[in-house]
């Protein structure tokens, strides 16, 4: 009974959807203000969702209907599942086992894979180009992301998010050594969420809507919601790994701090997406491998040195 509550209400589907839509509003409003626009009212993301849900689903004749319909659901499911292993306001996540960090990272790649499969099974040319781009991009940002997230774990000598939180609570200022990794993960997260400058898979001026060209109605609404949830979960993961302070404040203050952390990350993401132009896929890949990956190595190195000399 309790697990159903976890899954459907809190911190599962309902909470994440509401928070996701709220974060979408923050993102859109901030972006609009930065661009000298007024921006949407607070209920706009919800209104968009309801309106899209009421529209007709159009499935291309040549598409594989079951795969086409399955993908948005899968994207949401994977993102929601990941939240259960992330410590939110205390050191204890809802479920934990040793190695859950790796599981969370893999669960967070599933939405990208669904973008690929959804695009591929749409059979439209634009979708397929978008799908291939999504996958190509995945290989570029995933490695720096993994390395930079594993570095703090290495320092804590565990693959479990819970143990990590315990470690960083015991050593309050160690998270400051992981700032570089935080920056790298933030940029990689932009790629994961397909935001400018890494919105290459859905670049509308080039390939119409990329992966989502053929999606409409409820399925598109679900995909969009999936991305919103993924943004929250990604931000929560980053908050848990890189900002592991204030975890002993108790449920209310701790929860507020968690919301604050996530929103800070969301705001930083939207600032980043406002100030850049979209890169080309080749530029994106060489940037990830030539800049991000070496920087992630440096982060790993810092943590290894720390571990060798200070923590023991």
């Amino acid at each position, binding site marked *: 009974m309790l697990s159903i509550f976890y899954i459907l209400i809190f911190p599962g589907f309902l909470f994440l959807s509401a928070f996701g839509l709220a974060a979408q509003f923050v993102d859109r409003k901030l972006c609009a203000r930065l661009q000298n626009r007024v921006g949407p009212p607070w209920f706009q993301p919800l209104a968009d969702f309801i309106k899209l849900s009421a529209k007709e689903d159009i499935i291309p004749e040549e598409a594989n209907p079951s795969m086409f319909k399955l993908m948005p659901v899968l994207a949401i499911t994977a993102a929601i599942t990941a939240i259960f292993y992330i410590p939110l306001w205390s050191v204890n996540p809802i479920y934990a086992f040793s190695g859950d960090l790796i599981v969370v990272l893999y669960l967070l790649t599933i939405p990208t894979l669904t973008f690929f499969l959804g695009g591929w099974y749409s059979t439209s040319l634009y979708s397929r*180009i978008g799908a291939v781009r999504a996958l190509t991009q995945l290989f570029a940002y995933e490695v720096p992301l993994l390395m930079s997230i594993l570095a703090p774990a290495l320092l804590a000598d565990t693959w479990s998010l819970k143990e990590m939180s315990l470690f960083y609570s015991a050593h309050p200022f160690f998270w400051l050594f992981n700032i570089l990794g935080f920056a790298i993960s933030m940029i990689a997260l932009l790629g994961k969420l397909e935001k*400018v*400058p890494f919105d*290459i898979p859905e670049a509308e*001026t080039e*390939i119409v809507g990329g992966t989502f060209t053929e999606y409409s109605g409820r399925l598109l609404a679900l995909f969009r919601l999936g991305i919103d949830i993924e943004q929250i979960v990604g931000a929560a993961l980053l908050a848990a790994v890189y900002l592991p302070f204030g975890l002993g404040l108790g449920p209310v203050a701790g929860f507020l701090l968690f919301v604050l952390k996530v929103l800070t990350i969301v705001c930083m993401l939207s600032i980043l997406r406002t*100030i850049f*132009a*979209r890169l080309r896929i*080749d530029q994106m890949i060489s940037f990830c491998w030539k800049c991000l990956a070496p920087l992630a190595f440096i982060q790993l190195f810092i943590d290894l040195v720390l571990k060798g000399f200070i923590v023991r």
Partner: protein
Amino acid sequence: MHKVVIPIGPQHPALKEPESFSVTLSGEKIMKFSARLGYNHRGIEKACEERTYIQDVYLTERICGICSHSHSTCFVQAVEEIAGADIPKRALYIRTLVGELERIHSHLLWLGVAGHEVGFDTLLMYTWRDREVVMDILAMLTGNRVNYGINTIGGVRRDVTAEQGKAILKAMDTLEERTNYYIQIATKETTLIQRLSGVGLLSNKDALKLGAVGPTARASGVDRDVRRDDPYAAYAEVKFKVITDNHNDVYGRTLVRVGELLETYKIIRQIIKKMPEGPLTVKVPRKIPAGEAVSRYEAPRGEDMHYVKSNGTEKPDRVKVRAPTLANIQTVAKMLEDRQLADLPIVIAAIDPCFSCTDRLTGIRHAGKRSKSVLKWEELHAYSIRHYREHGIDFAELNKKMRKALK
């Protein structure tokens, strides 16, 4: 690698007007590019032959929404040349003023579109906001944001007052400051430079060979500008530099356009300062004597050319329009050689295409003759009224209500 042919257009988010491009891709690389133009034909050249000269002024103005003043000026210049009219100085200055204001609005618009094509929407929002400044000025001078209707055969229809002159000078100061800021962005913002430089290369030799015009040519080091080479209106009496650049790429085209913006502000300041007093129009007979003339005009996008032939009646015998995009569109295939799909929108956008200018002519479908699904105009009209009534909207009722409310 497997090759795919993807259609860009006739409807595509990257294109603001319907044109069809077909791109053969190998992976992300463009192997072949071909264009099919003609989706915007409205039969304007033929229509010009069936209307009077004064009607044609307004018709040519509607060839294009952005460079409307360019077309109408180009047309009236040709007609005035045939008629041998001596246009008052003040009218020429006002024409130049509106033409240059139009250049500002067109170039700012382009800058925003270029930003949008490379996914830099912030630039779009900023430039289009600043574009409102010049749009307001144009609305103040002419009563319209586009299609100014200021030209008439023999002069201009509205005067510029001293207060308006002051407002324009003030707006120029604002715009100059903003343009300097954009120059800073264009030359410093890394991702933007990455997307623009080296993209859409057109060597000086190719630009000359393919007959590129306007900023597209000038960014490839072709030092041509009709305003200087073949001065019309008041351009012989103002000082300005022709901006050229040797980058040969989209980045160069951006620099040329923002550079031209700065020159335009200088021109406008000189015009306001020097504008002579005097009448606005001279009388030109309704029937233009037989003759022919060629008129050239440096539109924001490049050289615009009108050829007018008259036959002594009140309607022209032939009007030929060559819009700048038609000259430039042929360079696009060259620019896209060995480029990636991602570069296509910005390369096409970099010539600042205006397809409705390009496709100005030609007629109508043979309604009812060729295809049964074609509705006659009256049928379409009746159908639309019926359709809205069925959906509970009655325009007749609404109009009545509106009139009442206005009283």
